[in-house]
């Protein structure tokens, strides 16, 4: 009897994450967390599989200020001390803290009219990355899982959903991994910390090639015999674990950013975010369909301006270099770029020069793939306190990212005999932003 059921057991998900983020071969015995892998049947109703497309999502955790980035309002009561600078798109200005990105704006577009009505970090992260309103007890797959499920070729040897972030420490609003929910743990994120490759564990030296082949043969024969009597999700997950571990080991170089040239490493800079961006480029070049790079922290209730100088000073050049490199290497036409946050920051400047949480009128950056370059969607009023044109929310952005990457966001996944909408059916893509 074949079990068509998504594996939602927490211990499975944990095993999967431990397996990918920790030891590989050494962890095979515990890598039982792929029970859902083969239960998510490949049938996809009405979905276009654009196999060569990818998504790069830069998530600025804590809530980056739209006024210090994509929607500056200089010399207004809310504008802060920074000026707006001209970009490579005539008439389009962004904050002076982003001089390198300003030189790439002909490749990018801004949505200035998000109204997500939310000021809670965790809810914002969930809603922006799942495209749905958060509801207790309901879990939707992360954007990365949806992208991996939709864009990853069946025989792709690498994980389809990679999160690059700093090692967690202290208070942290970032989720350490991204859930694939009912898509199954195969599409959950593999997490790379601090630009380091996964911790590969080589086969102990005393086990020869011959001995290794012999023990694998025993395992395979045992599996086959078992499958003749009873085929389960668990046994199939075991098999997938072994095969992906072998693939990862043979592709370990993909995760080694140190293999990039000294010149490229210098161009991306010595900051951790710079190395993360270079690693992202490397993964995208190797066809990983979804790469997310987190950058923290923008939760600037105090000294918003000083901290945005510091954080955006770290963000600007590596990000602009990445955009430029993707374009120069012919990858931008099939790589959708998004720079998002869980929300924006208040137009009102508080008494300690801070800005607080604000979901009422803020911005997201999009570009690449089927996103029209150099466009501005939506508008806020003179001092940025409200959206005056083309209100959108996380649902619209989610649809737009997927559509831009060639995924039919209005389609459905068929899993275990049930259908699940790819994105919130109550929302649509921002079609005027798509080419």
């Amino acid at each position, binding site marked *: 009897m074949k079990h068509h059921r998504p594996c939602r057991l927490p211990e499975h998900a944990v095993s999967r994450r431990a397996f990918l983020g920790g030891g590989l071969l050494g962890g095979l015995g515990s890598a039982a967390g792929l029970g859902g892998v083969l239960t998510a049947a490949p049938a996809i109703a009405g979905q276009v599989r654009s196999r060569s497309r990818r998504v790069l999502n830069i998530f600025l955790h*804590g809530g980056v200020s739209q006024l210090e980035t994509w929607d500056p309002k*200089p*010399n207004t*009561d809310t504008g*802060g*001390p*920074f*000026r707006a600078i001209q970009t490579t798109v005539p008439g389009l200005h962004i904050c002076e803290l982003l001089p390198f990105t300003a030189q790439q704006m002909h490749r990018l577009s801004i949505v200035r009219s998000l109204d997500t009505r939310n000021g809670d970090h965790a809810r914002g992260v969930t809603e922006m990355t799942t495209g749905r309103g958060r509801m207790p007890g309901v879990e939707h797959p992360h954007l990365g899982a949806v992208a991996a499920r939709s864009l990853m070729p069946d025989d792709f040897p690498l994980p389809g959903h990679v999160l690059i972030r*700093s090692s967690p*420490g*202290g*208070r*942290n609003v970032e989720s350490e991994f991204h859930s694939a929910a009912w898509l199954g743990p195969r599409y959950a994120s593999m997490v790379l910390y601090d630009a380091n490759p996964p911790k590969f564990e080589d086969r102990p030296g005393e086990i020869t090639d011959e001995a290794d082949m012999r023990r694998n043969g025993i395992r395979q024969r045992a599996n086959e015999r078992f499958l003749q009597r009873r085929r389960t999700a668990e046994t199939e997950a075991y098999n997938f674990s072994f095969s992906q571990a072998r693939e990862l080991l043979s592709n370990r170089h993909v995760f080694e950013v140190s293999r990039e040239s000294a010149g490229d490493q210098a161009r991306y800079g010595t900051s951790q975010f710079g190395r993360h961006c270079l690693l992202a480029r490397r993964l995208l070049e190797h066809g990983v369909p979804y790469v997310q790079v987190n950058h*923290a*922290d923008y*939760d*600037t*209730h*105090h*000294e918003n301006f*000083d*901290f945005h*100088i*510091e*954080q955006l000073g770290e963000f600007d050049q590596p990000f602009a270099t990445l955009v430029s490199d993707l374009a120069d290497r012919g990858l931008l036409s099939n790589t959708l770029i998004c720079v998002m946050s869980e929300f924006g920051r208040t137009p009102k*400047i508080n*008494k*300690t020069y*801070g800005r607080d949480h604000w979901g009422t009128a803020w911005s997201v950056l999009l570009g690449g793939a089927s996103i029209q370059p150099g466009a501005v969607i939506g508008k806020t009023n003179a001092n940025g306190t409200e959206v005056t044109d083309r209100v959108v929310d996380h649902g619209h952005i989610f649809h737009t990212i997927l559509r831009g990457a060639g995924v039919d966001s209005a389609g459905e996944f068929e899993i275990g005999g049930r259908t699940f909408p790819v994105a919130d059916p109550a929302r649509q893509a921002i079609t005027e932003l798509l080419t």
Partner: protein
Amino acid sequence: MTGAMTADPQQTKLLRECKLGRPLTGCHWDVHSRYVYCGAEDFLIHRVDMGDGGETLLAGHESWVRAFGSSPDGEMLYSGGYDGRLIFWPVAGGRPEPLRVIDAHRGWIRALAVSRDGRKLATCGNDRLVKEWDAATGQLLHEYAGHESHVYNVHYSPDAGCLYSCDLKGVVQAWTSGVAQPQALTTVAQLHGYDTTFRADIGGARCIALHADGRQLAFGGITKVSNAFAGVGEIAVAVVNVADGKLQQVLQSKDKTVGTTWGVSWHPGGFWLGLTGGGGGGWLYFWKPDSADEFFRFRLPSDGRGLSVSPDGAGAAVAHADGQLRLYGLG
């Protein structure tokens, strides 16, 4: 206002309020007490006439202005803005216009200082540089590189032979005029932290003051930061010896007031005066040199962001976060 040397801080009182519109960022009491100049969360300098309270707007910057200084005769105002511009303003006349506009720094000018003889002025900023200028011609005299983070403030020695500068990381450099190589005086580590969650430097030596005898420097800021996101830490002023950089005292508040010391000044009455703002509200603090705890503090109606003591020491101007310039009598 009473004479400076007889100042009685416990008699401190509010003398005047001037609503200037947007939240203020800094202030400067001119040498003849004719005007107080204020920066605000706009791109203007607000000149308040001490006689009739009239306000004149000086337009020339393209960002907020927090750095001010005057020539000894009071006829020239110098301003430094977050636009990196240093502007010379002859103050005679109804509406001053810029005499010189100098693109002095790449990034914010955080502070400026005028030498006691009025012949030189110094600026510092986010480009990690300290620069010295000819006050008569506006010519760059010297450029000093050595800080590794944003330079927050600068002060001349009494004879103008030395410049002291302090930065985000609490590093204090001493620069002999004309000598490019700095002498690291000290690091006021109490005023700086690196938050590993926030992944950013927190605090810094925000303000600076020199004791009248020239032997001690005071640096104000925030210490013991427990929440970098919200700026939760205690007000503090670190006092160090000029001769050897040794920490003499960390002035604090008895009740561990949450906030940042945005202004500090040595008062001729024989005490350090500090201005604070932040979670604990706005306060004027009064510290004797031999005690870490204040001997008096005065509650302000709103957070303080800039402090300037009158030339005779009888009053203090405070730039407030609520957009009010308030003048206080110091007893």
